[in-house]
């Protein structure tokens, strides 16, 4: 596929989202207005701008990535607009800022490539961990953490002299920084870590000192779980550690021991925290906990079930009945109004994006680029799998955004940054 085709598909996604917004206007009894044009301009400007930046600074990159991402963003945006047009206008600004940032990343590494990131790996790690801890800042400080829906994931910055605040989820950025660090760290240590010294039964044991990273991974995830009370973020972080260790070493020992640790930690969390216990019970039988912990899951199931094959039609369903429909449960909203047709398209989009990401990793020539592309793809795919699994009741429900589709500036910024890095790695595979 060519850059020209990429541009055409981005225009198609911009048209798609504009038509979606127009349909929402129609079903609410309004006529065409500036919202349609503004949405078209925002999408054409942001993804079109990224297309131009890619053409200039990563011309060899895969041209599949941006069209898929723009399609997913468009579908999510239609539902956000349908649920709350005020949120949608904020999301438009976020999209512009996030794509500008992604273009900026492409520009910054235009000469030296992703390799330059290796030099800053400990800085990136420190910033990443710092960002993870930022929401723990006390409430009385001008820059402080905030607890939303029982999870302390937010950072709020009071703008002096006004009542306005900037809200941000630093964890979204942290996951990208930590992934870059891991790719760099593992690229140096992988060979040593995959050396087999001992065997227990079928399992090949690595050197004990190489178990360090696994324990660090479990520890960090558990700390996040305890202090920020967020199952999704800790599961994602843990999954990134384990996934990248496996990609780097090829040792299933890491996956198995990680799995055992996760189950153990999950069991401890279940028996220690009431809110974890409620969530697990609501997961096993949401209908029995309809009045409390199962309410959101059941509303999501009602929405998806009512949508059936072709959906209620955009603007004709009741996704507003689902709590957090614009963020965590955006997929249920899409499934209700666009039906199974829409939900399969979204899932196919994510699967295609993940496959493209792994393809970039596999074709890359050096370890760092491989691990970086693989790790970033794991971040994207795992986050989608965890939240979608929750919505579809395959996993307990956890608070995570669906990449590209959910409302949220931090999430969009982080995911477009991931795209910029993926595009650059893809470009460099030909060098």
């Amino acid at each position, binding site marked *: 596929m060519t850059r020209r085709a990429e541009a055409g598909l981005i225009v198609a996604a911009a048209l798609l989202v504009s038509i979606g917004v127009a349909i929402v206007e129609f079903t609410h009894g309004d006529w065409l207005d500036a919202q349609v044009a503004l949405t078209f301009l925002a999408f054409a400007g942001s993804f079109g701008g990224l297309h131009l930046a890619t053409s200039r600074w990563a011309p060899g990159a895969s041209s599949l990535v941006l069209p898929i991402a723009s399609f997913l963003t468009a579908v999510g945006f239609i539902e956000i607009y349908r649920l709350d047009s005020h949120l949608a206008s904020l999301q438009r600004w976020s999209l512009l800022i996030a794509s500008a940032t992604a273009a900026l990343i492409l520009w910054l590494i235009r000469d030296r490539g992703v390799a330059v990131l290796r030099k800053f790996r400990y800085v990136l790690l420190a910033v990443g961990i710092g960002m993870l801890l930022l929401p723990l800042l006390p409430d009385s400080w001008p820059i402080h953490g905030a607890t939303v829906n029982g999870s302390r994931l937010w950072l709020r910055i009071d703008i002096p002299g006004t009542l306005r605040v900037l809200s941000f989820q630093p964890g979204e950025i942290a996951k990208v920084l930590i992934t870059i660090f891991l790719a760099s760290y593992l690229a140096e240590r992988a060979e040593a870590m995959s050396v087999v010294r001992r065997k227990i039964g079928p399992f090949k044991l690595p050197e004990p000192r190489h178990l360090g990273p696994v324990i660090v991974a479990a520890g960090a995830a558990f700390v996040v779980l305890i202090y920020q009370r967020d199952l999704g973020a800790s599961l994602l972080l843990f999954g990134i550690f384990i996934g990248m260790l496996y990609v780097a070493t090829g040792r299933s020992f890491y996956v198995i021991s990680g799995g055992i640790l996760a189950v153990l930690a999950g069991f401890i969390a279940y028996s220690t925290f009431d809110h974890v216990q409620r969530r697990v019970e609501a997961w096993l039988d949401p209908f029995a906990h309809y009045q409390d912990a199962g309410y959101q899951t059941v509303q999501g199931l009602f929405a*998806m*079930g009512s949508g059936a094959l072709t959906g209620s039609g955009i603007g004709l369903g009741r996704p507003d009945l689902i709590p957090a429909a614009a963020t965590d449960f955006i997929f249920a909203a899409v499934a209700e109004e666009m039906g199974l047709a829409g939900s399969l398209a979204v899932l196919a989009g994510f699967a295609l994006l993940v496959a493209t990401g792994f393809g970039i990793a596999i074709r890359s020539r050096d370890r760092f680029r491989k691990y970086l592309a693989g790790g970033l793809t794991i971040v994207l795919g795992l986050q989608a799998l965890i939240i979608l699994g929750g919505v579809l009741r395959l996993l307990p429900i956890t608070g995570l955004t669906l990449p590209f589709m959910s409302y949220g500036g931090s999430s969009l910024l982080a995911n477009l940054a991931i795209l910029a890095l993926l595009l650059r790695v893809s470009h460099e595979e030909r060098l």
Partner: protein
Amino acid sequence: MNIPLRRAAYAMLTAFVVLIASVTYIQAVKGPELRDDPRNQRVVAWRTGRQRGPILAADGTTLARSTPSAADAKLYRREYPEGDLYAHTVGYTSVLFGSRGIENTRSEDLVSNRDSTISGVLNGLLGGDTNPRGVRLTLDHTLQTIAAAALGDQKGSVVALDPTTGAILTMVTYPRFDPNSLVGSDASAAGAALEADADEPWRDRSIDETYPPGSIFKVITAASGLDQGLVSPSTEFDDPVALELPGSDSTIQNFDGETCQNGTTVTLEFAFVKSCNTVFAQLGMDIGGDQLGFSSQAFGYNQTVPFEFNVLSSVFPPPGTIEDNPPATAQNAIGQRDNRATPLLMAMTAGAVANNGTHMLPYLVSEIFTSDGIVEMETDPSIWRRAMSPASASVLSDLMEQVVISGTGRRAAVPGVRIAGKTGTAQVTGKAPHAWFIGFGPVEASDDTPQIAIAVVVESGGDFGESATGGSVAAPIAQEILAAFFGA
């Protein structure tokens, strides 16, 4: 170096396949169940806010319609322009109280097929008509209006039907309720008030209530005697002041406490026209409890009447219960004691006499039509059961005509039309009697003449109270409807 990457990719893509299977299961298989869960608020908006087809009276009068809601263009409001007149037949469909009546039984046709279930999509793709259907009832708006006015605010029921087809022409009950109040904004309060009303306005007394039929049951006792060949109109009976019932101290007397004619003997015809209890109690005992039970069953007693709605079974002691109990047989033979009947079955009984002894299946829906007005389904009249022989029906027809010409049913007479009828004044312990009239016209109608059979019951004497009789209270109500039907 690439093997772990490939495996990670396969693992993740497999997970997406699991998600795809899961969402397909939820949306394509479990969809209807989740959509119809009563806790799913979409159901309420979807069921009650969707456009529904019209329900019309036989002449096209609109009984139920959907109009676009002023507040929300895609939602509709259900309206019942005739208010309480058709409350029990047309029914309602309401957020809080579910649905009843035709709105309930014909809901499948009345709602649009335009949905996204597999069959809905296929239907749409194959070019099927997905617009809601309309339902035309057999009810005659003029007769319905006159019946309601004639019944007034007396508790009771009026049922009229075409004896040759079974088509229900009138079905009115009082007290009633306004279905509009159950779909409006004050539905909750209206429903609570309805529920609390001791007069039970929600009950359709035509089918959902049984009354002792009193003397109108003499039609069935006479039919049984005629069918058995035990009697003819000229058969002579003793004419005592009081008929002593064997094996007991009790007696049966006539309505006025006098002899039927002159105290010697009296013919069956005279006794029927004057509605003498003594003669029919004796006839009942002559027929026997078991045989009377079989005859009642032939007329539809102790049976489920197949109808649009559930009809309460009318009750007569079944064969094997009162054969050895002559007092019980005698009292049941004149429509008292355990004998209970619905107004619908009594209208059908008059209809069977008119229709040569054959019960037609009663029906309320004459046709289902598409939004383009094309008739898609038409009800074909069908026979339910044979109540008596054509010969007996012919004899009874003459006897009933005499009741209207010179007997207790004179006030049901319509000038220029041969009307047949029978009155009943059913005694109820501790309450004023129920006033009954059943009848039909014209007698000996040719095939192409419009015919009507009717039953009227007024609970506890209505406005007349203790002094009420079938002839004074129920017959005049029937007369108004018959007169309107025949345009007199």
